[in-house]
């Protein structure tokens, strides 16, 4: 079943290239994937921590590379996120004039890349599947983008290829840091081997730094973030939804999956650096976000900013904070996808996303206004949405990291500052909401058509996901925690 999730989008993409009707095939594949994802979620055995639904094919015996898939709670949640966002992204796609087939094929390839990366339990394919999405992203932004799309396409591609090559070097070093007979690309065996033979501390330090930079570029960690706003502002809405919502979580997932369990000493050594960088994300990028004058740029920056919270959860190095980080990855994926989706619809109807030109759109597009409102409140972190549940876990987790200290600890200061970030995000989200959907409406927007009945389904899906996890966080928390708990019991 897990294999189906990866193969289905690729097969659909090939069918589309060969000549199947593009939108229909893509949508069918995405819905099938969604159903299978839900089925996996319900069949998943919550009582154990190990990988389930494992399927493995040997690729190279010399290098011990396997084409292997399996999920534990953490990766299952990510796969589910990818499935949900794929359905809504494809649903949100508008009529495409040029290269319609290629457009849907690219979207499906991104989806397959993300699902493959999350479901791989082999280091090699974990990396390889993520790279599968690189060229489709380049084409999506370059061919169908808006604004300075060519610049954005080059920027994201060069940036991400550089980042992922650094990542590759780091991963190869990780592989080679084990004694030769233990060397394997199987993530399960790697995790066990790193417990039996902990990697030497100096090695851990430089591998961690390489992985921090590599993953950091992919996640848009503070000094490496500049590709993200450009790319998301120019990308067509479905591409931005998939990339910001799902693909960017790959780096964070990699952190939780590999870095935290395998390089605890490296992580400890570089904690201060990471905290400073993530505060850069939250505070500096937060302020930059407030200054934006266009909705798409603001959303791009806001997605960079929220990465800071997730990093805070990961850096706190305890079960509570890491679980919060994983939940926030899910929540942020849904909320940012909804925001980009609505923004894309607004752009299609008005041709602009500049705050100066917009206003009062809630009168002509009430449903879009409502949906954007939901997503904006979720992104701010209002109670009732998944983001609240996860951010509160992150803040408590991070605060607790320095609990035994007599005086204020780095993490407590960081948490206090990060809490102010919530205020920052309230400011920019509400401002964006006001200047887009509230206020006086210029006359030319009076005849805009609201989202059709068809588009309400993906909106409902995303909002339902946010609210379910918001009101019943246990549904996801109790599948993530067993996986994360093993990290902190085995490493201590």
């Amino acid at each position, binding site marked *: 079943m897990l294999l189906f999730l990866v193969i289905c989008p690729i097969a659909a993409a090939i069918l589309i290239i060969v000549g199947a009707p593009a939108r229909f095939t893509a949508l069918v594949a995405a819905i099938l994937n969604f159903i299978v994802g839900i089925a996996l979620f319900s069949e998943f055995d919550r009582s154990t921590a190990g990988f389930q639904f494992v399927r493995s094919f040997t*690729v190279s015996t010399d290098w011990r590379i396997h084409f292997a898939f399996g999920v534990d709670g953490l990766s299952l949640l990510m796969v589910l996120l990818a499935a949900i966002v794929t359905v809504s992204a494809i649903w949100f796609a508008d009529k495409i004039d040029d290269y319609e087939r290629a457009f849907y094929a690219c979207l499906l390839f991104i989806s397959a890349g993300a699902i493959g990366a999350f479901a791989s339990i082999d280091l090699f394919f974990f990396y390889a599947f993520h790279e599968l999405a690189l*060229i489709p992203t380049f084409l999506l932004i370059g061919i169908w983008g808006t604004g300075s799309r*060519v610049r954005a396409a080059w920027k994201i591609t060069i940036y991400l290829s550089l980042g992922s090559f650094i990542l590759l070097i780091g991963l190869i*070093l990780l592989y080679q840091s084990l004694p030769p007979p233990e060397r394997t690309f199987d993530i399960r065996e790697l995790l066990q081997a790193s417990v039996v033979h902990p990697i030497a501390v100096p090695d851990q330090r430089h591998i961690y730094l390489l992985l921090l930079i590599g993953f950091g570029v992919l996640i848009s960690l503070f000094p490496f973030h500049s590709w993200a706003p450009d790319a998301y502002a120019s990308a067509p809405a479905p591409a931005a939804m998939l990339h910001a919502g799902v693909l960017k979580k790959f780096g964070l997932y990699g952190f939780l999956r590999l870095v935290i369990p395998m390089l605890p000493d490296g992580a400890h050594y570089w904690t201060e650096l990471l905290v400073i960088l993530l505060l850069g994300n939250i505070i500096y990028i937060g302020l930059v976000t407030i200054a934006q004058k266009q909705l798409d740029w603001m959303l791009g920056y806001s997605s960079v900013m929220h990465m800071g919270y997730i990093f805070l959860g990961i850096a706190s190095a305890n079960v509570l904070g890491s679980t919060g980080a994983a939940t926030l990855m899910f929540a942020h994926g849904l909320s940012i996808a909804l925001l980009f989706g609505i923004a894309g619809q607004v752009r299609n109807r008005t041709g602009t996303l500049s705050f100066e030109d917009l206003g009062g759109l809630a009168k002509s597009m009430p449903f879009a206004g409502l949906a954007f409102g939901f997503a904006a409140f979720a992104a701010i972190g209002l109670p009732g949405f998944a983001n609240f549940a996860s951010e509160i876990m992150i803040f408590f987790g991070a605060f607790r990291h320095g609990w035994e200290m007599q005086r204020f600890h780095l993490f407590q200061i960081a948490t206090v500052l990060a809490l102010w970030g919530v205020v920052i995000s309230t400011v920019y989200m509400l401002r964006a909401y006001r200047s887009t959907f509230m206020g006086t409406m210029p006359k030319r927007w009076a005849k805009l058509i609201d989202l059709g009945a068809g588009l309400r389904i993906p909106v409902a899906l995303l909002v339902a996901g946010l609210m379910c996890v918001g009101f019943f966080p246990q549904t996801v928390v109790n599948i993530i925690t067993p996986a994360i708990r093993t990290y902190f019991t085995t490493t201590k």
Partner: protein
Amino acid sequence: MIAIPAPHLEIDVLILGMVILVWETFTTTTNKKVFAYIGMIGLTLVFIASFFVASQPIGGQSGGFWNFYTADALAMFFKRFTLVTTILVIAMMIDYAPAMTKADDRASANLGEFFSLPLLTCAGLMYLVSAIDFIFIFVSLELVTISFFVLVSFTRRNPIALEAGVKYLILGGVSAAFLVYGITWIFGATGETNLQRITAAFASGKIDNYAATFGAVLIIVGLGFKIAAVPFQIWVPDVYQGAPTPVTAFLSVGSKAAGFVVLIRVLQPFLMLPNMQRLVVLLALLTVVYGNLAALPQNNLKRLLGYSSIAHAGYLLIGIACFDGPAVTFYLVAYLLMTLLSFAVLIIVSQQTGDEISGFDGLGKRAPFLAFAMVIAMVSLAGLPFTAGFFGKFFIFASAIAQKQIALVAVGIVTVACGFYYYLKVVRAMYWPARNASHSVAGWQAVVKNETITVSPLSRAIMIGLMVATIVFGVYPQPILRAITPQRRQVATTSTSTH
């Protein structure tokens, strides 16, 4: 089970080439393509025959010719590699024939020779990968080089082709001189020309290290010309641009692969000498940096592929510097697939809109199939996963990291990112217009005029085959890694003995 002695393969290819050459002179057929098909069928038969070669007697490394010749796993693998390359190149030549008539109307009368010469080159390359004696290396190298002299300047009334031919002739001559001079120094120092006995002589420790090092450096210079390593790469862009495109493809794949096989064999004894590894590392560094940086501003696709072949030579040299035979072999196979694929597309497209990158503008609309094939080729050259090119880079860099060659890895990070830029430039051209350019570029005019490109069934089949192989080896590299396993062991022992 039939067992064919290994040297028969080359003899068959030589006879085939001669027969076609003579036959072509005495027939009155005007359709010379027949000879190309005969050549391809003949080579395919030889390729099949190569799987029935009698296995070499264990213990005796030699296969005849006074210990000049070996048919070990490495040699057999690259014989097949050469055969496949030659078959594909001849297929491309069929597509290219009309363009040649356009460039030089008298060249078309000699098409029969154009189709038969690659067979002689192929025989030379096959000898070269089997050669384990300096004399034999030199002789077979000259067989290859001389047939290339003719092929490169085949459309000699075209000034660019003539320039290419002269450059290749002069630099080829110079490199041969360096090689011979180096061989004499080695002979003077060790009294041997056979590589195995040279290894033994080095192991005995009674050798004048300076003389041997000097000879080895000269040999590396000579071979450096063949594999286009910096600073011996000056001829590459001009020759690549001027030569008929299938010949360029042949040069960049066949000639380079054989050069690397010789380098693997020759360097094995010499890497015991002090400073030899450092020299190769330096060469690799210069080559990757120069190849990638110089490729960035290119606007002509043939030149771009020329610089890219320098860049790939650099990556291969990284593999050589780390003694990793299997990684080099895999990289060469990946390089064969992706380079020939891009040349195959280039040959067809350039007949409509020329071989500038702007000629590829809008190809996604004019010929979606060719554009897709080109995307696969470029993505693989850039080294993205699920293509053979990625596994190639992966193996090379994994061994560089294992050897703690930090400089090579750090430079590699930058150059790989450069590669993304110039390869994706081609992808960009095919799907959307450049920022400043209007629709006046040749490619877009073709789009406006709604011209489409017809692809012959043979080329289409070949392209599909190359694409499938690129992706299959990008997921499942095991067959190639297995094919040269004995070589792996051999390399492993050398590298342990040098440390």
